[in-house]
């Protein structure tokens, strides 16, 4: 995130033997540098909050293409399948994990989900995952945690390409290049991805994954004025075009509709980094990003339908890091954000919705002894459209000895109401003409409909409509790490998140004719808690094992209160109503109580092979007994194991080949996992034309 001024060596990225030296968090020495946890460069071993680093080597060896591919193999992360591929962290919905590229937030969420398939892994140096509320540094959305993608910026003259081809005509081509001349550095990256898509539903022309073409390019220029000042400019552009064939079976007659969806992501950053002296570093960053999505649907016998959404986000931020002495350092910053959105799903697409946010944060890190670190920080966000948010955080780490350390943190995270929850003005004429109005619109529109006699009844929730408040979470993480012997490392983390003011859509009124009107309210009080653990063991220089497990409990406090008060019912074997017992309650939908992963890896010189298992226990999918919450009588998706494998070899002269097979067991679930194809294969060829290390 911060420019690495004469700091960390990035040279090993282009070492010829890419497989051998790098390591991920668990096998690491603790010397890997992580920036996301504190917004400053720190050794991972000295960070007081739960952090995972996924290395470039790990991404390559898993044969990943898009960000979701590699994240699904991480302990405690589950990839959801609605509105693209979102990540569920510590049991919280994808809405509550902030996704950053080089420290800058990505925007453009649909239904709260940021589709991780928009992000190629072709130029990632490492992925940093910070769990637990991090709003004290990052503001909105960093409620469950933060995923920061650090892109590869080699400081050498290099040129390499990689080509992968696999099942469903899925092709992925990446080109990386960098030039270093005197004080000027340029890095360029291009990635082209296409797939024919697939459907596992028999006899269906609709595809769970539609044919997609994506083109991502990223350019980074940096100029070093002197040893103290560096300017860098970063551009990223991602274009997606998706073809959808939608068929509606109408009494035996199939009506085909052709849809075309175009998504565009543009990110630009200008950063000036200046080191005033040994103790003070200042960073000024201007970031502007735009996400636009356009959907066109042409029915063979109908009128064309267009759906359009555009979001813009611009931010100026200044951050100063003070290293006061060996024991005390301080980070302060302030920024201003302007965010706008236009959509055909708002009152008028020409009406731009705007929110402005001013914020400031401060964080201090104090090391009273070598073994003890305390980090305290807070951030204040002032919003134009809704209530302000104050997010404090306190974390500490204590190293009992070189083998054993303990970390604990407590923090507050928030997520601001999004434009959809404020301004949506959408009526679904294809499905019963129900309407969903954002809270700003709802009272206005319903009052007007009521005046002209189009409302048949106002529900009790209508009278509870008010200014939306941000959703808040308080997260506690207590973790330990234990390295009894060099080849064995064990980490465990207990977490607890209490979420208040959760925004949920509620029925607020009925139109005459029975159509329902929904809006958004701060109504729910949810919790997630559990434990996650990772164990890594190197059997020998060639063989290593790694395993991870997460146990998760979730629930809604109001639902539990209603159950305890005997107000919730289910049905017995005769179909008669019975009172729901607390033990029958399963908590939030789409959560597995048990998730695990296991990896066996073999490495010898330039050759590697691995086998990776991902397990997920059953999860609730729909409310079969109609009581409005999830209990053992409802519909569940079966638990399953996915097994992936990959093998590869580096040849001299910069040639690398790799082949893999994902989902070897060919597990499919048409109803609940439409995005999981059966067994797939791929082959990768990569070639490094040029790699000249330059002198600093």
């Amino acid at each position, binding site marked *: 995130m911060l420019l690495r001024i004469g700091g960390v060596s990035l040279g090993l990225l282009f070492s010829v033997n890419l497989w051998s030296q790098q390591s991920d968090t668990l096998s690491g020495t603790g010397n890997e540098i992580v920036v996301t946890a504190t917004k400053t460069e720190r050794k991972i071993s000295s960070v007081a909050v739960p952090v995972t680093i996924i290395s470039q080597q790990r991404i390559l060896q898993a044969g990943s293409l898009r960000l979701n591919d590699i994240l699904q193999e991480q302990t405690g992360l589950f990839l959801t399948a609605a509105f693209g591929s979102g990540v569920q962290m510590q049991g919280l919905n994808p809405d509550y994990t902030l996704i950053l590229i080089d420290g800058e937030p990505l925007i453009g969420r649909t239904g709260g989900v940021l589709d991780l398939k928009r992000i190629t892994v072709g130029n990632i140096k490492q992925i940093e995952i910070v769990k637990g509320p991090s709003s004290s540094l990052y503001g909105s959305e960093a409620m469950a945690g933060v995923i920061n993608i650090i892109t590869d910026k080699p400081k050498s003259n290099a040129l390499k390409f990689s080509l992968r081809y696999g099942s469903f005509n899925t092709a992925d081509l990446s080109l990386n290049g960098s030039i270093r001349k005197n004080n000027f550095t340029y890095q360029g990256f291009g990635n082209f991805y296409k797939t024919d898509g697939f459907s596992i539903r028999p006899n269906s022309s609709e595809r769970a994954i539609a044919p997609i073409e994506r083109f991502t390019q990223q350019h980074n220029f940096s100029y070093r004025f002197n040893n103290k000042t560096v300017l860098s400019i970063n551009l990223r552009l991602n274009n997606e075009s998706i073809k959808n064939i939608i068929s*509606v*079976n*109408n*009494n035996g007659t199939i*009506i085909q509709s052709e849809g075309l969806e175009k998504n565009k992501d543009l990110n630009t950053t200008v950063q000036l980094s200046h080191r005033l002296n040994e103790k003070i570093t200042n960073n000024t960053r201007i970031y502007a990003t735009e996400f636009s999505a356009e959907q066109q649907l042409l*029915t063979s*016998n*109908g009128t064309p339908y267009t759906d359009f959404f555009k979001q813009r986000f611009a931010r100026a931020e200044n951050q100063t890091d003070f290293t006061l002495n060996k024991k005390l350092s301080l980070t302060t910053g302030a920024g201003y954000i302007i965010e706008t959105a236009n959509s055909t799903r708002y009152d008028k697409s020409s009406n731009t919705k705007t929110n402005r946010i001013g914020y400031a944060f401060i964080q201090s890190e104090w090391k009273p002894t070598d073994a003890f670190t305390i980090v305290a920080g807070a951030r204040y966000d002032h919003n134009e459209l809704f209530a302000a948010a104050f997010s404090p955080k306190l974390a500490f780490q204590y190293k009992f000895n070189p083998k054993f350390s303990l970390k604990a943190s407590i923090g507050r995270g928030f997520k601001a109401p999004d434009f959809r929850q404020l301004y949506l003005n959408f009526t679904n*004429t*294809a*499905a019963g*003409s129900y309407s969903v109005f954002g809270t700003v619109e709802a009272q206005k529109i319903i009052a007007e409909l009521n005046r002209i006699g189009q409302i*048949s009844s106002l529900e009790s929730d209508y009278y509870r409509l008010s200014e939306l408040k941000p959703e808040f979470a308080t997260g506690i993480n207590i973790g330990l790490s234990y390295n009894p012997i060099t080849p064995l490392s064990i980490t465990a983390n207990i977490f607890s998140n209490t979420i208040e003011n959760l925004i949920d859509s509620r*029925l607020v009124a*009925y139109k*005459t004719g*029975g159509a*329902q009107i929904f809006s958004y309210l701060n109504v729910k009080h949810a919790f997630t808690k559990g434990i996650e653990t990772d164990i890594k063991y190197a059997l020998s220089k060639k063989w290593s094992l790694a395993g991870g497990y997460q146990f998760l409990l979730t629930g809604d406090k109001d639902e539990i209160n209603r159950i305890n008060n005997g*107000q*919730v*019912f*289910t*049905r017995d*074997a*005769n*179909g*008669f*109503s*019975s*009172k729901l017992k607390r033990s029958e309650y399963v908590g939030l939908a789409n959560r597995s109580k048990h998730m695990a992963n296991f990896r066996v890896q073999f490495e010898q010189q330039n050759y590697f092979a691995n086998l990776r298992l991902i397990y997920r226990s059953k999860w609730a999918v*729909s*409310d*079969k*007994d*109609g*009581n*409005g919450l999830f209990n053992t009588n409802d*519909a569940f998706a079966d638990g399953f194991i996915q097994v992936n494998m990959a093998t590869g070899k580096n040849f001299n002269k910069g040639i690398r080949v790799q082949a893999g097979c994902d989902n070897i067991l060919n597990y499919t679930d*048409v*109803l609940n996992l439409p995005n999981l194809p059966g067994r797939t294969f791929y082959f990768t060829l990569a070639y490094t034309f040029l790699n000249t290390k330059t002198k600093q």
Partner: protein
Amino acid sequence: MKKAIWVIGFMAVLAACSKDDKGTGSIPVETITVKDLAADTIIGITPGAPPTGGMPFGAGKYSFYSLESNQMVASSDSASNKWDIAFRGTSIITNSGNRGPAAGGAFVYIGLFSDLKTIPKDSSFKVENAPTAFAIPSGSNRGWYVYDGLNNLINPIPGRVLVIRTASGKYAKVEILNYYKGGITPAASASDAIKTNTQRYYTFRFSYQSNGSTTF
């Protein structure tokens, strides 16, 4: 629900269990299960595609039922006091107000069928007092059912008892058990054709208090 041994057809008497320890002199109240009451079943689908077409429809006729005599009532008797409740799709009406000549009515009690031993004194019975007003609220999650839009299924809400004031001013309690033929809700993965063809068949159980008291 397959385990339940029911006699198919109307008038399947399951149990006669009532507690009458209050000594009011009332006769024991039977609980009767009615299965597969056809309520305006689907006869076709409108031409075209949604939103203008593609909607399944029935003949538009209510199925009338007498709780007192535990039998169907011909629709030619719809303007009489012979029926107590009637079914059409998800709509359930009482013989009152705009829908019938009698002084019927109903309200939805939240709780267990077996726990409703006496109708609370402060209960207020609603009547069909306008063309669009229902004594038993219509619509998903308002009265007796919830619509699962994801799987296109109608599920009766558990813990809902329809307390009915009959055409003759007596009281009955009704629990809707299922909305599909044979009392079995199709699987979520079932085809639309199965979901369409098996819906609008009510399975319900009821107790009718013939002595006019509010105790079951």
